[in-house]
């Protein structure tokens, strides 16, 4: 009502009204431009000054459901034979795997991919894909395979009964069954694994919750693993994803992976 009244009062001769409207439009545009410069400049300043780590979560504080943690892996920077991310994950989370072992736990591995038709080759790390629609969570009978509010998919090893149905369901071979006892020296408080349970990458949730980035991303000498909040349009990962095309492994399955790659074979 008030707006209507105001517009009625300001109704004048057509020419002067048009001139005023132009002036108002120019003013509006100027304001918008100023606001854009300010916000962009501020954003860039914040981006430049921001630490690489995610914001820390206080102990006991609930997870932020507005966040969705993800990772963009620049496969053009990833070289065959480089296992720095894998080694860092092993050290951080306490697993060891003989190459080619069929029973050892592996949270992350480097996959070499070759196009047999063209000979094109690529090497890329594959870990749990932290899907928005994770088949492992769907099939788990007890709910031990679960998705955190911030999108991290992990296994609650206290309620995992070791049925391995999640391993049957995961399209990415991201899960391992703990086939034997874990030696004392490899046990980690933050990455509990138990014989008879299924285990998998949890995006270093303990690090993320304390404002750090996953060990693999930190260790990558090429800076090829960009970790961040996919839901925050101002995060570095979101900005980068806006600029370049990115891909998901088996995007056709509709799992909506949190791990994106800049190029897939």
């Amino acid at each position: 009502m008030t707006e209507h009244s105001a517009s009625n009062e300001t109704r004048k001769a057509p020419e002067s009204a048009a001139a005023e409207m132009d002036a108002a439009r120019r003013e509006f545009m100027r304001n918008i431009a100023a606001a854009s410069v300010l916000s962009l400049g501020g954003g860039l300043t914040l981006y430049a000054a921001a630490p690489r780590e995610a914001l820390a979560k206080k102990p006991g504080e609930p997870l932020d459901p507005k966040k969705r943690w993800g990772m963009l892996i620049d496969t053009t920077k990833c070289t065959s034979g480089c296992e720095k991310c894998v080694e860092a994950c092993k050290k951080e989370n306490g697993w060891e795997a003989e190459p080619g072992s069929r029973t050892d736990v592996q949270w992350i591995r480097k996959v070499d991919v070759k196009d047999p038709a063209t000979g094109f080759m690529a090497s890329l790390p594959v870990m749990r894909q932290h899907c928005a629609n994770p088949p492992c969570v769907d099939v788990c009978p007890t709910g031990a395979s679960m998705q955190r509010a911030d999108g991290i998919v992990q296994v609650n090893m206290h309620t995992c009964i070791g049925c391995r149905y999640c391993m049957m369901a995961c399209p990415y071979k991201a899960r391992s069954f703990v086939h034997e006892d874990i030696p004392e020296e490899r046990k980690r408080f933050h990455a509990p694994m138990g014989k008879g349970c299924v285990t998998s990458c949890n995006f270093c949730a303990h690090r993320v919750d304390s404002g750090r980035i996953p060990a693999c991303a930190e260790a990558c000498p090429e800076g090829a693993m960009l970790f961040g909040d996919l839901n925050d349009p101002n995060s570095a990962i979101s900005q980068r994803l806006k600029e370049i095309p990115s891909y998901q492994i088996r995007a056709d399955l509709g799992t909506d992976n949190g791990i994106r790659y800049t190029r897939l074979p």
Partner: protein
Amino acid sequence: MKKRTHYELLQSGAGYYTALIGMGLLIVAGLAATWYMEHYGHIVTGMSNEIVWGMPHVFAVFMIVAASGVLNVASIGTVFGKAPYKPLGRLSAVMAAAVLAGGLMILVLDLGRPDRLIVAMTKYNFKSIFAWNIYLYNGFFAVVLLYLYTQLSSKAGVRRFYKPAGTLAFVWRLILTTGTGSIFGWLVARQAYDLAIFAPMFIALSFSFGLAVFILLMVALMRGDDRAVGHELVARMGRLLGVFVASAAYFTIVWMLTDLYAAEHRSAVAYLFASGNIYSWLYWVGFIGLGTIAPLLLVFSNSARSSHAPVITAALLVILGGMALMYFIIIGGQSYPLVLFPGMEESSSFNDGMIASYAPSLPEILLGLGGVAVAVTITLVAAKTLHILPTTLADAEVDPHLAAEAEGAGLKKAA
């Protein structure tokens, strides 16, 4: 005129106790194998991160599928009103529950953490077909026991509910096998599964496995206790087995053709069905040759009307072929690598892109046999304590029409 069926407890012969002791030993061996596998972890089995379900699942899934099929015998009498099957209703219900119990025991003891069974019973993820199956299995026991109660009760008021209870059990078993088939059918990521046909295929397989198991155990129990079993009754069940066996094979062939048609699945299905590996042999020789064609020839042969041998042999072959098919589906299906990058060659320290190998270990087989022994033991004990076994299954006693048919067949043979 319709004759009343009389039921009698099993006699306590030496054979009975020998059978019980034999089964007891197998159960102990199965439990010892479980202890061994749980103590050292699954590292001592043939299973791996690629073949996550091994021989115990082959036994367990076969038995769970067969259990619902065993109940068909009762359903044919109760729901579809076929007189010759009516005296077998009680035995069918008990045996169905027994076979399911044996299968579930294997499944539970093969868990990484069987001690956490209580977690599985108290925490449910209702989106999981596995969790649904827990309800379906428990419900199956409840429904079958109710159905059995309506058959065993001396109260006319309870017996009145015999048909509704039988119908409920029949519907329940169809849903249950749909659930079991969907465990595989809903695995979107696996090239060899991911098809809706798994649910009806498992129902057809359950008809065939279940009837084969029932025929074998029924004839063994009856003849072991010197009770008559009519030739025409067994021949008729054999012919029905033939129909079931053919329909089960039909579904597997449609599965194969569907996957062959889709370029996406072609290499996986060619690997399974036509690459000359162990799995191709198990399917074509084990399931199709021994488990389908041979039983069909046997049950429709003329000698099946005058002797139990052809039908019993056919039932044994159906079980053998069924186990071969289960191995083919479960192990073979997992051995084909997950396709992360369609059309590409993959290699990694985690065996990406590689065919997974598997050799069943002794403990796994012992656990499977232990489950079979549990099923047989429950049936033996039930036959000794409940009135479930008819005093006679002679053709004339079961259904006068059968006797007439048998006589006709005899005359024809003589002529």
